[in-house]
């Protein structure tokens, strides 16, 4: 889609931080796992656009946050660049999807979870905790502590993760899964790295170590097949 203008139509607090709903043209709405770069043209002090991952997706907009700038008030106009990158593509045939948030906010997994459940898939979210109001999560979602993620190995037929590179480095030991060994089902991971240029500059800030060399999360990700990466 590229550049468009968006408008903040609502803000609220989640865990003491600002979250917002942003209205934008339909082609500007990101799919689960994609991102949008947003700037408030009135904020002269901002050096970079904000990286927004959708936490809820609608036809004419999406929600993002928590962690947005306090100065983003309802009515604010935003310059948007997106949707950018590759989102989640869980197998259509998946019937038991495990989701795991290794660090950061699990809200970034919410649209992928909602999509899976709406396809009739059973879903468990393994996470340190659920942020925000419980009513923002689908009723059908089961939630389990992150430590029990190894149990997903026997149950699930697909896995979607969100993790920083550091969190990803701890995945094998969390699962008790031997070095080099592949998981028994398709797995994808949304990698949490800075995305300052969104690919415009090939700046390299978003580089993620892959099996062969590096991948740039802004363009090749931010969602990768787990086996593409070094983990």
């Amino acid at each position, binding site marked *: 889609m590229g550049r468009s203008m968006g408008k903040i139509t609502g803000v609220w607090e989640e865990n003491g931080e600002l979250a917002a709903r942003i209205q934008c043209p339909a082609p500007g709405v990101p799919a689960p796992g994609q991102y949008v770069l947003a700037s408030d043209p009135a904020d002269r002090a901002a050096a*970079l656009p904000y990286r927004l991952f959708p936490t809820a997706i609608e036809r004419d907009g999406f929600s993002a946050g928590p962690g947005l700038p306090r100065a983003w008030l309802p009515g604010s106009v935003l310059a948007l660049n997106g949707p950018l990158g590759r989102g989640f593509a869980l197998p259509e045939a998946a019937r038991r999807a495990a989701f795991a948030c290794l660090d950061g906010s699990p809200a970034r997994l919410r649209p992928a979870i909602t999509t899976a459940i709406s396809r009739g898939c059973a879903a468990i979210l393994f996470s340190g905790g659920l942020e925000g109001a419980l009513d923002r999560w689908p009723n059908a979602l089961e939630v389990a502590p992150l430590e029990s993620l190894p149990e997903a190995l026997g149950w699930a037929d697909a896995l979607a993760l969100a993790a920083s590179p550091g969190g990803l480095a701890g995945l094998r030991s969390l699962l008790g899964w031997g070095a080099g060994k592949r998981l028994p089902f398709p797995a994808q991971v949304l990698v949490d790295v800075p995305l300052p240029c969104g690919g415009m500059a090939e700046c390299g800030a978003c580089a993620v170590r892959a099996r062969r060399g590096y991948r740039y999360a802004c363009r090749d990700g931010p969602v990768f097949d787990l086996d593409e990466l070094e983990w």
Partner: protein
Amino acid sequence: MNRGCGEKEIGRSASFEDEVSPAPGLEFSTPLLNAAGSLGFSLPGRGAVDPDRLGAFFTNPVSLAPRRPAENRCLVPFPGGFLLHTGLPNPGFRSVLRAHAFRWARMGMPVIVHLIASQPEELARMVRRLEGLEGVSGIEVGLHPEISPDQAARFYQAARGELAVIASLPPDRVVDLGPALQRAGAGLVSLAAPRGALPGPEGRLIHGRLYGPALLPGALQAVAAAAGLGLRVIGSGGVYAGQDGREMLSAGACAVQVDAAWWKGFEIEDW
């Protein structure tokens, strides 16, 4: 103070309607440029930047051998800006040429290739190869932050040849590197992003390049210092609006490079 790039403009600052000739053989249709590292190796697609409004295109830094991203790469925000440490990853000179030279030939504006090298000989090898290339009008030589004045002069001399040469100075080294470069024959310089240090995500101090609107006052000071030495200077640092660019021209710059503001959605139309 040298307040223009072309001979005609001595005594008044350039405006964004002007064509400028910062060095023999180099013509910018407008003084609005991009900084190396801000728009990739050739112009990105999706119409993010209108090529007709850009006076020249500066490529990402290119080294002879491929460079991988730094292990401890990171981005650290601070009030008014951010620190970026990437290690300047690039696929290396041959791969860059293979993927981008045909685009440079069709870009419709002067292409300046930014080169980084550890040795003058390395630099000379790359420059000689570029001299034959269609579309390439000049090279910008990245000088590393702690280079000595003698070394800087040697890098400049290694780069001289058929192409226009722009020495990219660390802005805090204008006063001590400028005269050495002038003695070596350099008349045109640009300003690299200043370096700084902040604790990274793991708490250790990370050194990196600084960007953001907070950098403008230091950049204007460096532009004025370079112009005061009689250098032609392409200004950069903290330019986030047309007004910032006009200030830089008034301070003595002959042209202005916009860097990370493109990523925020800098609009050429604002100028």
